[in-house]
């Protein structure tokens, strides 16, 4: 029976690795990445996965093997009476310490790219989260916000492909989080703060905009859509939306009050 328990502990690394080997092929994996910076995040994910995976397998195998070999029923050797070893402690303190410091330094650049090195471009849109929708405002033809020709849309964010996109993220009421899974972008929207968010999309298409911070009972349905399109299609959409808004100016103003 003791060996059965050992095998149970062996099953942990075996099935753990098997699950991670099976999942990508079965469609349970990182969603498609269409951003310019996303590869850095995915690369770090794989890097940490490999590293932690190796430590996971090694330590779990050690647990299994020690349990198997030093099973009190079958191990006839006397117990190794030791309280520890200074050298070994130093080794397994310094080796992980070095690895951890390396991990810490290795990822700094990706973090700076996504959150600190803001591109020098005008703000494309202002996204204001509120319970339970995303209010989006483009500056319109004059390129300036807070003018009469600002273009308003709800839950429907359009951006041109292959451009540096800069967005200002705000919240009107509670916390929300602006999550674009396919662009590896996440940023909380905080009332009282204007937070810049930037990215660059490589592929055209329609993608989910998810609210990832609990914002109330309707949190689950705070769904937006991101449309990445060619520059010309984007301009055309913007012009059409502005024209449609012009035609229905009255109700639009009422609605936003």
């Amino acid at each position, binding site marked *: 029976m*003791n060996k059965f328990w050992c095998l*149970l502990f062996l099953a*942990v690394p075996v*099935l753990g690795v098997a699950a991670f080997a099976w999942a990508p092929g079965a469609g*349970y*994996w*990182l*969603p498609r990445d269409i951003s310019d910076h996303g590869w850095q*995040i995915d690369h*770090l994910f794989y890097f*940490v996965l490999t590293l*932690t995976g190796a*430590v996971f397998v090694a*330590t*779990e195998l*050690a*647990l299994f093997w*020690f*349990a198997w070999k*030093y099973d009190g029923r079958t*191990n006839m*050797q006397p*117990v190794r*009476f*030791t309280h*520890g*070893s200074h050298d*070994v*402690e130093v080794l*397994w*303190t310094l080796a992980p*310490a070095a690895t951890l*410091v390396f991990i*810490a330094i290795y*990822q700094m650049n*990706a*973090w*700076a790219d996504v*959150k*600190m090195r803001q591109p020098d471009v005008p703000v494309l849109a202002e996204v204001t989260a509120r319970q339970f929708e995303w209010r989006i405002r483009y500056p319109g033809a004059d390129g300036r916000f807070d003018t009469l020709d600002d273009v308003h849309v709800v839950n429907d964010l359009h951006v041109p492909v292959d451009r540096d996109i800069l967005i200002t993220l705000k919240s009107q*009421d*509670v*916390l929300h*989080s602006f999550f674009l899974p396919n662009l*590896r972008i*996440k940023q*909380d929207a*905080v009332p*009282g*703060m204007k*937070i810049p968010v930037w990215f660059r999309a490589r592929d055209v298409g329609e993608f*989910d905009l*998810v609210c*990832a911070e*609990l*914002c*109330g009972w309707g*949190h*689950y*349905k705070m769904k937006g859509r991101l449309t990445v399109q060619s520059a010309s299609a984007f301009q055309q959409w913007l012009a059409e939306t502005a024209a449609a808004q012009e035609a229905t100016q009255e109700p639009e103003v009422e609605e936003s009050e």
Partner: protein
Amino acid sequence: MSSPAVPHTHAGAAAAAPAMPVAKFLATYVFSRDHKVIGLQFLFSTLLWFIVGGLLALAVRWQLAFPWQGMPIVGRLLFSAEGNQISPEFYTMLFTMHATVMIFFVIIPILAGAFGNFLIPLMIGADDMAFPTLNMLSYWVMWPAFVLMTISFFVPGGASAAGWTGYPPLSVAHGAAPASQAGQTLWVLALVFVGISSMMGSVNYMTTIIQMRAPGMTMFRLPMTIWGMFITAVLQAFALPVLTAALFMQLLDRTVRTGFFIPEGLVINNEGVAAGGGQPLLWQHLFWFYSHPAVYIMILPAMGMVSDIISCFARKPLFGYKPMVYSICGIAGLGFIVWGHHMFMSGMNPALGAMFMVSTIMIALPSAVKTFNWLATLWGGKIQFTTPMLFAMSFVSMFIIGGLSGIFMAATPIDIFIHDTYFIVAHIHYVLFGGTAFGVFGGIYFWFPKMFGRMMNEFWGKVHFLLSFIFFNGTFFTMHLLGAGGFPRRLADPYHYATFRHLLGMNQFITYCALGMGAVQIIFAINLFYSIFRGPRCGRNPWHANSLEWLAPSPPGHGNFDVQPVVYRGPYEYSSPETTEDYYPQWQPPPAGQGEASHAQAQQHA
């Protein structure tokens, strides 16, 4: 539980002396100042709440596997008005209260309150805590918390639904959430009482461990359990005031609109909110300044218990005792400068985020050292696969997974993607269920003989272990894959998004495993209660362990020890060449002529 039993057993005596029983019963079992009774009171209260928290989790699982479908049986009782189905408001309340109950009513009080109370005086060789009355109060102050939290389920709007983290403005602005009514205020008040209880315990534990150790029991002869409890008490003492202050600020924001956490110009439900000038992020800083150390409050005692169990059943000294102690201290110290890792996406300055990233990654180091030392303790031993040992080994196995997955979210760029996804849910449950809860199960099986003078059933203990272990991994390992898919937490219906629709099947699998895991706890409950009354009686030291609690009678009477114990050595002298037995208790004097030094040391401390 004991109230119906007592008049029964005392039936004969009661007839002879009718005046005595009620007052004496109250003093002995209810308002007892004996640390062992208080420990058991904590144990049974928290186990009851464990059931509540577990059922809340199963309801969450039901919705994620079968969204908007009528719940069988329970649904008809609870929400027949909504067609037996969970409403989004109710779902939000479910996960909020699951986490609140599990963290504040189960894990923290079961470790410090139940095991801390029961074990500290016994393991250091004291007759009781330093402040027995304060100790009694620390239990009874939990009751206002229990009552307030229970009431909150029944007030209009229901219990708190702002997440266990209670982030403002959602938790503060009344218009923002239906449950931001009395439910949230009661939540705040209940947590204040939990905090007072923890603080009373913390002061008592620190004083007791420093002042009341038996002669010869130096700090470096303390079992790891006591070190875990000691450092936990220190963490509580330094971190709790911050949480309490934050809770009072939230209370004032809610009741008299002080606006500590409310910025200017908030518009909720098309209505302006008057207060202003505050900052939502302030709450997050204060909350996590407590709640990150709380993660260690919720695991260090379990780490200590597991160290003791592993050394005992490997029949071998704990490998690297001092490095183990130092790494607990290291975790506690670093634990105070990593809280910002919960706020990488919060809008906090990204440069500050980078600083917190470095400290957070470094906190993995002491955890790694502990893991290596546990493994090295097994190496070269003679392992006995008892139920407590199986739970302790599974603690190590599961803590490896929970510790390693933490590195993903410590790495800020990866956290951008996995923050607020099921990857985090998997991580926290590997640490707190696979880690702490398994450690607690191990602790119950291990110290049960001391608590009740009887043994638990080994066979059913192992069945309980096996099934819990399988269902636990089926439930939570899979969640890593959900997280890799970006599957967000706290959504009542994630399948609303095309990105997550394909994850429904996996969620159903998880729910079946979770239901199985809940069901097999019945085995544990039956074993526990059956063994209290019918388990085979045991002697003082059924496991042949070394630490002082095994010197006391099982169960120990008032005052614990027959005579004042004297300590001659550390608690891990298993298979020592100095003796023919494979254990060498701390209280056993060395044979005449040998060990003069340690004997002299013992005298000196006396």
